[in-house]
């Protein structure tokens, strides 16, 4: 056991840092990921990485992966976090991509993997339904075989950024008479321009448009769009969820967030001194950093055991629960740090480019909406209650 980076790893960090510094688009610097950015903004870095061959590091090399070790991947996330890059969205790269190269046909791989790699195709995830959230297997959307097509009917919801999506992957019931709800589900891809697909916005408490209702009415998709075997979709869906969870810890981003929080707390004043000199506040930052260190080393241990050939197991639930709690706490402390200037609401407000007096410091503008928005993290990706249920069953054996 040791914590040192090898000379090759140090060299790798230099290379990566230089690449990001040279190639990260100027107009995106300091912007940070936000759901209200344009499609072009959100895809820009993905497309640059695609050209470099670095857009899908975790994939097997034969599908375009980089073959990086866990340590190299760790360095990669750190260096991206350092520059606040807008990373490729997970829906293609971390979700449907691995499902396709693991379970899809050769034609399907040839058709879809290139677009995911180069960032030209935007994917969305059609799992949840109004009646099927935590209990995903109770989903009702149906796909009925009609010649060489499936006809899909139903409603998906919470579909993240579907307003920009070119393609979606949907869980549909293909055998209504299956013995168990998990059986009889199929994993089907659909072009979002297919007639009968309608995407309606859902406004969230932070005022943003990040999620949607996706209505499917007599949507005809060719049978080639079925991934793997009919009625085996649940296996693929669960495979995907495990992948979704392992990326969810967000350690590098949270470390960067703590750094920013320290900057804010050094600027804000309490009793004539920087807030960071306040015993109460610095202890909270300290606690957060300690929790984050624990998470970081738990993640490193998990990655090491994955590299040793074990797939993401129920331990990844720890990363999801602790990672999201830390992200939430971070935004909570940031809101606390900005004091009165957490109150103004700027969405759709002519602050940018306005010549009038500014309203509070820039770093305060998103503090409250970001805090509100981050409440989602303990709900989505399998809620934190569900993650604890998983550990209860799979690890404690209760």
């Amino acid at each position, binding site marked *: 056991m040791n914590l040192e980076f090898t000379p090759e790893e140090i060299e790798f960090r230099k290379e990566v840092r230089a690449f990001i510094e040279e190639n990260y688009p100027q107009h995106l610097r300091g912007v940070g990921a936000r759901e209200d950015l344009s499609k072009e903004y959100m895809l820009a870095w993905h497309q640059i990485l695609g050209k470099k061959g670095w857009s899908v590091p975790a994939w097997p090399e034969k599908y375009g992966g980089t073959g990086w070790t866990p340590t190299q991947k760790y360095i990669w996330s750190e260096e991206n976090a350092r520059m606040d890059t807008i990373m490729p969205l997970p829906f293609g790269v971390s979700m449907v991509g691995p499902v396709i190269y693991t379970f899809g046909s050769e034609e399907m791989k040839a058709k879809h993997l290139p677009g995911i790699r180069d960032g030209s195709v935007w994917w969305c995830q059609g799992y949840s339904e109004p009646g099927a*959230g*935590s*209990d995903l297997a109770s989903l009702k959307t149906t796909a009925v075989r009609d010649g060489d097509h499936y006809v899909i009917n139903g409603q998906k919801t919470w579909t993240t950024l579907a307003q920009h999506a070119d393609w979606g992957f949907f869980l549909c019931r293909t055998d209504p008479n299956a013995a168990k709800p998990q059986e009889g589900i199929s994993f089907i891809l659909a072009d979002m321009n297919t007639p009968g697909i309608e995407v309606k916005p859902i*406004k969230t*408490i932070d005022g943003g448009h990040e999620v949607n209702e996706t209505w499917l009415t007599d949507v005809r998709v060719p049978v080639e769009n079925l991934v793997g075997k009919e009625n085996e979709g649940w296996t693929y869906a669960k495979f995907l969820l495990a992948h979704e969870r392992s990326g969810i810890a967000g350690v590098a981003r949270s470390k960067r967030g703590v750094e920013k929080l320290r900057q804010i707390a050094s600027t804000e004043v309490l009793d004539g001194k920087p807030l960071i000199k306040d015993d*109460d506040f610095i202890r909270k930052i300290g606690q957060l950093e300690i929790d984050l260190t624990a998470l970081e080393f738990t993640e490193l241990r998990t990655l090491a055991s994955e590299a040793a050939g074990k797939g993401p197991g129920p331990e990844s639930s720890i990363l999801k629960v602790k990672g999201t709690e830390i992200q939430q706490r971070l935004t909570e402390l940031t*809101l606390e740090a900005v004091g*009165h200037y957490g*109150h103004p609401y700027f969405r759709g407000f002519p602050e940018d480019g306005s010549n009038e007096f500014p309203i509070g410091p820039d770093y305060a503008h998103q503090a409250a909406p970001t805090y509100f928005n981050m409440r989602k993290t303990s*709900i989505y990706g399998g809620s934190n209650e569900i993650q604890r249920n998983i550990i209860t069953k799979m690890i404690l054996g209760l």
Partner: protein
Amino acid sequence: MDFNFSEEQTMIRDSLARLLRDQYEFETRRKVSESESGWRPEMWQQFAELGLLAAPFSEEDGGLGGGALDSMVIMEEFGKALVVEPYIPTIVCAGGFLKHAGSPAQKEEHLTAIIGGERVFAFAYAEPRGRYDLADLETTAKKDGDGYVINGHKAVVIGAPWASHLIVTARTSGDRRDKDGISVFIVEKDAKGITTRDYPTVDGRRASEVYFENVSVPADALIGEEGKALPLIERVVDEATVAVCAEAMGAMGVAHQMTVEYSKQRKQFGVAIGKFQVLQHRMVDMFMEHEQSISMTYMATLKLDEDEETRKKAVSAAKVRIGQGGRFVGQEAVQIHGGMGMTDELAVGHYFKRLTMIDSEFGNVDHHMRRYTALTAEPVKMAAE
């Protein structure tokens, strides 16, 4: 000891609850909050007609002879309906300054108009760099002939876009953060030299940045004694703090109730999610937080007129508890609603937002914990054997 409400208080509560049920349901509140002006002056008139604006003032001052308990009853109902109209700035703050320290002429001029619903105030005390310290003032008021000239910048003045008058705290002498040398003024918002920048707040209200550039006010704009206003400001802010605690307790109760209701209706895995024990206990904890908040708000309200130290301890204790309880109740309400809790469409998210922002009004948990411990940190002797 008596925890019963008077007949008048019960009447106020019932008639206000009826009015809010009929005319302040959530969808109406949303429309109003998103409208150009962001509030309803005609609702304010109805509050006046119900006697809410007169309730906490003495009969001599033209009121109904009530006090802080009446404001508490009213604010709890306002909290339940997420009322945006500026009761705290106008009635509790401006009204408080006038009732404790206003001259007969000032009362005559302003209190009558406040009680009648004709005049709305905002309380301009916070500054960009002062955080929650009421004495940390960079705004100055310099003596100029008989009157004063005010310069400075007040931050996030809640309700200012709707106000015709401002209560302004400013330094008449001494250094930033000195306890002496602070004064309070009544200033007309359209006075020459005042500029404002109005904006919505994240919890559906309105506020302004208010800039004073050589604003001249006459001698009789001063409330109370020149340079000696800090104890008065602290008293009024304590009264406002308790009022916002009452608002929070109303909002917490509704957020809790909505969550319990939702957990009975929402089914997953073939059962109502309210059947999962982990959620049950969380909702029980929300219930306990709400009950404790009620207790603390009553306690602090009842101690508002005691000596300064008792009052400060009581108010800070309440605000700490409400800050912590409001955070817990708001976060859990959203969590137990799942994705639905994240939507702008459902009311519960709006209760969560209001409860979040209440923590930073009139001092957050840390601020009040510091004030509380500073008052209680005296070493004590071991009792003699």
